[in-house]
């Protein structure tokens, strides 16, 4: 049976709906000996900022039941080095790549987007939701407020015609409100979810297990939350959703697609099995053949339920 796996995210046509999530796959080179990156639907880079960032104090990772807490703190080489040392490899890929960017002001976001557009980048993911850095002193991250979400997305959309994906935080009261404001500001798609803020303590030393005290939870533990967020947002906006959060296998991925995701991102699973994304892709194909689904787009949002008022 011929199946159509292609999906459209903004102006990007992806050959299949499987992406690797930002921060879990470096800049591609790190995994090139372990997996055929070109078979992916798209590849999202580790977040870059205008200036290099050292990142947070170690320890940066703690394993928790069915998950990991991380507080990397957006360690990255900065825009200049990224363009010089990381981008040339990304341009050799025969699959789409998305550059994840973060700034401390909306102007920094648009400056990053503009300069990367000049360098031939085709799509951005706005990381306005990292739980491990202080974007603005004492304030919430951009995606925890509908107005500042709108402001950042609008500013970037003014400066570029390219595809803009906005990555949102689940650490909010009403995710639909934030998603709607990103859509209104012109975001082409949504990445859901960034990690869930958490912490862990060493009871012998009475010290937090992370150097930065709190961190973002990812892995199978967060999947039900991520799935609920995707479903809620799917019912509130029209733009495509890239669903992510604890996807470990094809079954998980298909749950996200049924709940409203047009594409899915594999994150923590890459650490455990670098081939997870491609195994998930082949699992999705098998499911489609078995259930005679010719077009993956038909599966998106096919959840059978009595719509509860959200």
């Amino acid at each position, binding site marked *: 049976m011929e199946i159509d796996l292609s999906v459209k995210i903004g102006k990007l046509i992806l050959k299949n709906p499987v992406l690797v999530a930002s*921060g*879990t*796959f*470096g800049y591609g080179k*790190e*995994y090139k*000996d*372990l*997996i055929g990156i070109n078979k992916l639907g798209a590849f999202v880079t*580790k977040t870059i900022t205008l200036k290099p960032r*050292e*990142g947070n*104090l*170690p*320890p*940066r*990772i*703690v*394993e928790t*039941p*069915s*998950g*990991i807490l*991380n507080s*990397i703190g957006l*360690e990255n080489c900065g825009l200049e080095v990224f363009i010089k040392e990381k981008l040339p490899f990304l341009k050799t890929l025969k699959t789409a790549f998305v550059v994840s960017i973060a700034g401390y002001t909306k102007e920094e976001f648009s400056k990053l987007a503009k300069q990367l557009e000049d360098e031939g980048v085709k799509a951005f993911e706005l990381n306005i939701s990292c739980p491990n850095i202080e974007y603005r002193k004492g304030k919430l991250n951009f995606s925890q407020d509908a107005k500042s979400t709108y402001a950042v997305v609008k500013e970037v959309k003014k400066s570029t015609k390219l595809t803009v994906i906005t990555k949102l935080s689940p650490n909010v009261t009403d995710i639909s409100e934030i998603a709607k404001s990103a859509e209104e500001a012109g975001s082409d798609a949504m990445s859901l979810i960034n990690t869930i803020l958490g912490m862990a303590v060493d009871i012998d030393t009475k010290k937090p297990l992370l150097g930065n005290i709190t961190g973002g939870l990812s*892995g*199978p533990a967060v999947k039900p939350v991520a799935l609920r967020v995707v479903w809620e947002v799917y019912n509130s906006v029209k733009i495509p959703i890239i669903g992510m959060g604890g996807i*470990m296998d094809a079954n998980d991925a298909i749950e996200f697609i049924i709940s409203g995701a047009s594409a899915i991102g594999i994150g*923590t699973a*890459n*650490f*455990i*099995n*670098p*081939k997870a994304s491609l195994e998930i892709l082949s699992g999705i194909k098998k499911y489609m053949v078995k259930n005679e689904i010719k077009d993956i787009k038909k599966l998106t949002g096919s959840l059978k339920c009595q719509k509860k008022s959200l």
Partner: protein
Amino acid sequence: MKLCKSRIISNHHIKNSYYELSISSDYIPRFAKPGQFVHIKCSDNNTPLLRRPFSIHSVSKEKNTFKILYEVLGKGTGFLSKKKAGDFLDIIGPLGNGFDFQTTDDRRQTTVLVAGGMGTAPLLFLAEKLVHNSQFTVHRKPLVLIGAKTKNLILCKDEFKKLGCDVKIATEDGSLGFKGKVTDLLKEVLSTVNCQLSTVYACGPYPMLKEVSKIAKKHRINCQVSLEEIIACGVGACLGCAVSTKGGFKLVCKDGPVFNSDEIIWR
């Protein structure tokens, strides 16, 4: 590095909570360097979630096998200890940078290996290489200092001896060899030999490595330490296993696990 399913040849309980795993591989023995590690999926499900890193303990290029020495500490190593000969393990390796031992300095007089507890694991592989190399140079056989709380916890004494190393033991309770910490033994050894041109290679608990580093600095000798951190990806992608160094944060999995001791900002 490669991701492969490798067959277990044997998985022996040595003593206490220590095990030795022998694995068949036609890739890792050919390319592994002492100090490098392999990243193993210990369980068949998501508990525990992450892989576990293990130093390569010994390598046989003739038999296409390598060994890891491990201690059962938690769920991951617990699962690993239940694996049997014939089972397959999901392994990524070899990973990281190993010890720098390819010195061309023929004046080097003494090589001291300092192992605390499980720290013997990567040092046996290093000793294998050092002894092998010394057939072609004037290097002396390595001096190996092994420390543990008590006699029963001393690892690999006979293996190092078989290689022809000079082995000295330190136990905290004095049940075997020198009474005290292995770092005290190191101090004593360095005060008796002409240590100016020697190199110290150390692996063990963090406080021990910190102390070894201090001693090496005092004697102004080259010292390389193998550090441990929680490692998620193992390939330098997640940036989770950072350690503070004079050159900023570095990754245990990619820049290490072996570092020059004077590079580390000890906490």
